[in-house]
Structure formats: structure tokens, C-alpha cells
């Protein structure tokens, strides 16, 4: 087919396609708001996430009602809230809060300063400016409080810092791994590297390497022998059966060691990096990911520094997630490697590095971008899951998963009595959905078949 010779630049074309996908545009806008809120959490949250009053206690306070009509005059007024009075329900023994107009109205104010609760932006800029607030002793809980009386909305905004960045960071970790390993598997597929070199092929530097390699293999053979010997030495060695087992093990040890030596002396042991990496991917994929996550997490102690826990979670999520990407990247690289333009570059004498950087990696770009945006929501959910199980980030950090976990303390009644504790779930839902829409839109916009 004849191509259309419009001079519309590629990026413009992609943008135009993307704008047509209305859900994706909305997803992008919502994510922009969520990430801005997380980045400037101090500004957007009315209170410090860990601030609570001992007296009067405000535990499990429902969302504060904002009044727009002055009950005295019956006319519209500047929005205001009332202070609340706490009492204990005699039947359920749960706290109840009632509005107390006697303390007067507390008008909603914008750009307030809270000198008693300063915060920092990006750990550098100190500030105490907050978007909204009311004068103390009035309080405004947009989404209620937790059982300590901490403002849930502020905690959600701060929790977003963890939940939203963990998604991106884990995705970046898994993509770094996936791209690297998938790229190696694809590009070097069918070009096995030698794990050993027999003496007759030793020439110059390859001889030195060969000698080192041979020594290593000798060590491996010795190790196998040692293992077998250890087994025999440690076995109780009573009875015919036990002796027979010892004999078989010793024989296997000798056989194995001899086999290794025979192999490495006779022919080079070759390993295709493609086989090595792809079999590893398959093994990881065969283990249920939540189980793998939990067991990997169990390897590390639970009472470590919360910040380290954060990076640990990033690393773990990244580690279980790279396989799928590596597989696809390998596929793309394998097909691009055979494209005529790569052959042309080879015919021109271009080096492997140049071919990879100029011709192969760019070809994976659109897939990687789309895949990235579709993987992030999975990691956001993964973090929530881990935190929900108590294996993720810990106090004083907070995350949406952790908030949900504390929400379910108190059993089912907590949801019926205090439905506002489910707000973190809504944020998880919103962000995951938005990422998915964004990813869909990007996929449609970047799909090369659309422009063919």
C-alpha cells in the first residue's frame, strides 16, 4: 500500500489518537491530581497525619458536616462547621459525636497556617501552609478519623505518597530487570557462551580464561564429591539398606564428578543465555505470586526500619514482576533482530552495542510505555495486599493498604458503624482504574497497526 505522505509528526499523531480515548484522558487527569496531592501532601492535608488530641479524644469521628446555610437566618452563608461533643453509646459502647452549636461557628478557611504542625515538601522546603482548615478548637475531618482520632483524609493523602510511588518504583525495578534480561535473552539467543573451554582450544587469552574456568570446574567436581562424602560420613551407617544408600550416593558422587571432568576436558560447555533466562522466568511464573511474595518477605525480619521495609517491598514487587515483561521484550527483540534494517546495519559493520541502542531498544519503546502504565496498577494492588497482610510498610509510614488493614480491625461491624474507613479502598480503586484507562489509551495511541 502506498503510505500517506502527510508530514504530521509522529508525536502529534500519537497525541491526537490519545485524546480520542476519553476515559484515558480522564484517567490521566485524575492521576495528575492524585500525584500532585501526594507530592504536596502537607499542603493538601488539613492536619499532620500523625496528629491527634488526647483530650477531648476524637477516635472514630465521622466526617465533619459542612454547613452552607446559616440555621439562624436560614440564608446561604460562608461554609462553616460546628465543634462536636463526644458521648458513649450505652448499648454498643462506641463513641458518638454530636454537633455543638454552642461553641459557635468555625468558618472554613483557605490557605491557613498551622504553626504547631509544620511539614516539609520533598524533605527540603519547610512550610505550614495548608489548603483548608478551621480555627481550633474546631476540627474538620473530611473523611472522618481513625480509632486514635487521626484525620483520615490527611492520612490518605500521605498514604498516597507510599502507595502511588511504590507502584511506579516497583514497576521501574521490574522493567529494568525485564528489559535487561529480556533484551539479553532475545539478542543473544542462539549465540551460546562457553562456560568452559577444553585445553585443546586454548590460545592466547582464551587459554588463561580457559585455565581459570577449568580450575573452577575442578572445584565444582570436588564439591560434588565432597557432598557425597559428607552424606556418607554423617549417615548412621547401620543396616544393609543404609549401607546400600551410602554406596549409591558415593557412586553417584564419583560418577557426577567424573562426568563433569570428562565434559569440560572434551568439549566446551555452552549455555544459551536465552535458555537460562527464559527457564528462570518460567520457574518464577510457576510459583503463585502472592505465595512467593509472602515467602520472600518472610525471609526478612519484620522489625526493621520502616524505610528499609518500604524499599524491601519495592524490591520484592519488582522481582516477582519482571518475568512477563522479559518474555515479551525477548519476543520483540527476536523479531526486530531479523528485520532487514538490522541486517542492513550489520552489513554496514555496526557493532552489537550500536545495533542494540539505535535499532533494537527504540523498537520496544512503545510496548514498554504501554506495559509500564498497565503494570503500575498491579503493583499498587500488590502493595495494598502486602500491607493488608501486615507484611508491607509499617507505622509511622502509612499507605492505603495499611489504612484498609486498620479499617478492618473491629470486624464487620467497623464497616457498618464506620463506613468512612473504606475511603482508602476508594482511592486504591480510583488510582488502579485510572492507570488502566491511561494504559488502554496509550496502547491504542501507540499501536503501530493503527497508522499502517
Amino acid at each position, binding site marked *: 500500500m502506498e503510505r*500517506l*505522505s502527510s508530514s504530521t509528526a509522529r508525536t502529534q499523531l500519537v497525541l*491526537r489518537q490519545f485524546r480520542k480515548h476519553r476515559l484515558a484522558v480522564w484517567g490521566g487527569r485524575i492521576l495528575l491530581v492524585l500525584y500532585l496531592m501526594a507530592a504536596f501532601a502537607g499542603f493538601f492535608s488539613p492536619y499532620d497525619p500523625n496528629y491527634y488530641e488526647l483530650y477531648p479524644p476524637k477516635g472514630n469521628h465521622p466526617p465533619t458536616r459542612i454547613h452552607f446555610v446559616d440555621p439562624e437566618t436560614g440564608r446561604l452563608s460562608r461554609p462553616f462547621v460546628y465543634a462536636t461533643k463526644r458521648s458513649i453509646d450505652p448499648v454498643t459502647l462506641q463513641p458518638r459525636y454530636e454537633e455543638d452549636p454552642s461553641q459557635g461557628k468555625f468558618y472554613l478557611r483557605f490557605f491557613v497556617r498551622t504553626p504547631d504542625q509544620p511539614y516539609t515538601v520533598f524533605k527540603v522546603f519547610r512550610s505550614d501552609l495548608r489548603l483548608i482548615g478551621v480555627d481550633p478548637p474546631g476540627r474538620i475531618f473530611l473523611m472522618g478519623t481513625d480509632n486514635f482520632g487521626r484525620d483520615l483524609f490527611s492520612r490518605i493523602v500521605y498514604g498516597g505518597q507510599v502507595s502511588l510511588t511504590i507502584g511506579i518504583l516497583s514497576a521501574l525495578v521490574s522493567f529494568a530487570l525485564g528489559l535487561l534480561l529480556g533484551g539479553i535473552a532475545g539478542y543473544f539467543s542462539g549465540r551460546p557462551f562457553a562456560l568452559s573451554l577444553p585445553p585443546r582450544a586454548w590460545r592466547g587469552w582464551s587459554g588463561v580464561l580457559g585455565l581459570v574456568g577449568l580450575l573452577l570446574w575442578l572445584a565444582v567436581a570436588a564439591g560434588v564429591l565432597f557432598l557425597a562424602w559428607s552424606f556418607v560420613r554423617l549417615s548412621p551407617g547401620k543396616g544393609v539398606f543404609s549401607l546400600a544408600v551410602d554406596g549409591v550416593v558415593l557412586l553417584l558422587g564419583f560418577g557426577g564428578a567424573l562426568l563433569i571432568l570428562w565434559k569440560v576436558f572434551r568439549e566446551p560447555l555452552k549455555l544459551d543465555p536465552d535458555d537460562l533466562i527464559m527457564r528462570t522466568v518460567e520457574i518464577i511464573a510457576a510459583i503463585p505470586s502472592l505465595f512467593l511474595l509472602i515467602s520472600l518477605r518472610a525471609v526478612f525480619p519484620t522489625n526493621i526500619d520502616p524505610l528499609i521495609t518500604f524499599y524491601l517491598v519495592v524490591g520484592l514487587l519488582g522481582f516477582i514482576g519482571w518475568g512477563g515483561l522479559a518474555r515479551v521484550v525477548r519476543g520483540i527483540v527476536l523479531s526486530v533482530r531479523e528485520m532487514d534494517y538490522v541486517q542492513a546495519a550489520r552489513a554496514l559493520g555496526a557493532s552489537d552495542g550500536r545495533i542494540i541502542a539505535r535499532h533494537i531498544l527504540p523498537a520496544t519503546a512503545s510496548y514498554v510505555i504501554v506495559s509500564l502504565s498497565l503494570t503500575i496498577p498491579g503493583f499498587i494492588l500488590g502493595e495494598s495486599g502486602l500491607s493488608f497482610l501486615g507484611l508491607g510498610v509499617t507505622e509511622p509510614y502509612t499507605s492505603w493498604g495499611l489504612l484498609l488493614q486498620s479499617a478492618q480491625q473491629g470486624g464487620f461491624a467497623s464497616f457498618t458503624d464506620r463506613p468512612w474507613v473504606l475511603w482508602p479502598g476508594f482511592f486504591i480503586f480510583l488510582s488502579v482504574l485510572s492507570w488502566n484507562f491511561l494504559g488502554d489509551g496509550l496502547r491504542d495511541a501507540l499501536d503501530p497497526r493503527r497508522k499502517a
Partner: protein
Amino acid sequence: MDEKRLLEVRDLKVHFFTDDGVVKAVDGVSFHVDKGETLAVVGESGSGKSVTSLAIMRLIPTPPGRIVGGQVLFRGKDGQVKDLTRLSEAEMRRIRGNDIAMIFQEPMTSLNPVYTVGDQIAEAIMLHQGKSRKEAMELAAHMLDLVGIPEPKKRLANYPHQMSGGMRQRVMIAMALSCNPSLLIADEPTTALDVTIQAQILELMKRLQEELGMAILFITHNLGVVAEMADRVVVMYAGRVVEQADVVPLFKDPLHPYTRGLLHSVPRLDLAAERRERLEAIPGNVPNPLYLPPGCAFHPRCKHYVEGLCDREVPPLEDTGDGRQVRCVRWREIREVRA
């Protein structure tokens, strides 16, 4: 419609509505096919030849494409003339495969890889002729035998991937002819095949036409194949018919500069010994269907182009008086100069 006419396409217009604008893929095409004859439609990519054949079958992908005007008159097996562009989808399904059959360029992708060859041929037979599965299978074996596939009974149980490209195209032909259609549309049926296999398929189609008497609408870009197969030829360029004639006069005395250029740009094996000069290439590129040149779409590449004459209005498709048609304002001069 004349009694011997099988198909008459009148002023057919198929437009594709894309993001970049309206592509007039077929823009006022008229031609006819008589019973039992072979009409070749020749053109390059973007000429609209394949879209025309798909429009006759009402297989234009909608959206973005749509038949926006014209008629496709077809005489059914019952003798009634119908306008295919006005039939309901259900009526059209009865025509497809039964009255008009089609074979495509890619024998690899036009067969379903998960069914046996026998199943696929029998399905068409059962659908249109209401035969039992057993009868249909017998007929399918007969059809495979007819298209020259050895051991047809055994081959029925084969899957498409177990056959070569040439074999698959034979199966496609068997399937297309199984309901005894009066018109076979062949869209570049040999383009994906090697020359020796192409020769086999062309021989087969000629033989089958003699035996079964169907008309063939042969879509191709290969002038050699046209010379071999066609009774009459329609040459298309940029969505329009530029010339229509019987095969011998067309090759001997092409009237349209495009037809002439096309004939002279291909190297000929049979004249190899005498000639060794440069090929007469047509300069320029096949035009972008979104931005067709004004007037005669061929004028930027034409050596007979006259400013102010060729680039104003689309020239009409004129009858030359001897059963030929040509769309060029200067055809009389061109003919005289050559004579």
C-alpha cells in the same frame, strides 16, 4: 440488461472515511462481464481494483469504507437481475459463494487453520445446496479431484498447513467452484505463488472455465497473466477506469498513455534477444489517494500532458467507436500519431 450480460457495474463509488480525509478508492467505475467470459481488471496499488471486487461482494469493511453510489446489477441463477448494492445482508449471503465466488491472493490466510480442508469445502456446500454432510463430503472429494489434487479422498482430512501454497490455492478454487457459481472473482490469485506454480494454477483456471462455463473477473497487476487469461481488459488508475478494450487490441494498440507506459515499462523475455536499451519507465509515483491531482489523475506522470487541458476537469470515459473506451482527452491525436 442485455441477455448475455452477467454483471454490470454502473458508476460505482466506494469511499473510505479516514481521520485524514475521504479516500475515494473507487470513483465512478463502470464495466460489465458477459456470461462465460474472462474480464481482467489491471491496476497498481491504490488503483481501486481490489476495492471494486470487494464492493461487488459487499465485503467492504464498514466503517471506514462505504458504497456511496452506483449500481451493481447481477443476473442470478434464476435469471432475475438484482442490484447487489440494495440487497439485504441475508439476501447477499445467499449470493455469496452460491452465485458469485471469490478467491484471494493469500492462500495461507484465506483458509481456516483449525478445520480440515474437507470440512471447509463441505460447509459451503451444505450451506448453499442443503445437502447432507455425507453428500457434501463426496462432492468435496469430487471438487478436489477436479482441481487436480491427487488422492482427493485422503486429502479431505488434511489441515491447510499440511499443504503447499499451490495446493492451498487449488483447495480455494475447489471451494469457490463447489456451488457452481456463474461468476468467479479472482483477486490476484497467483501473486503469492512461484512462476511454475502460477503456470499450474492458470492452466487449471482455464480448463475449469471450459468445463464449467463460469465467467471470471480476474484482478491482477501482472500484464503477462492478463495477456494469457483475459478476453477483455479494464485498466484502472487512481480509482477510475482509464481504458477498456478486448485483449488483443489493447496490447497491440494501447490508447491511454498510462496503459502504454505500463506495457513498455516491463522487460519482456520474448523480445530479449533484440532489445537491450533502457526500460521506458513511467516517471513519478503512484498518487496518494487522499490528494489526487486535479483533472486527469495521471497528468503529472504523463508525457502527453498539456497544461490547462489535462489538469482542469476529469476527462470523460469516451467510446472510441470500435467497442473500446478510453479516458483521455488526447486519445485521437495519440492514435493518429502512431498510425
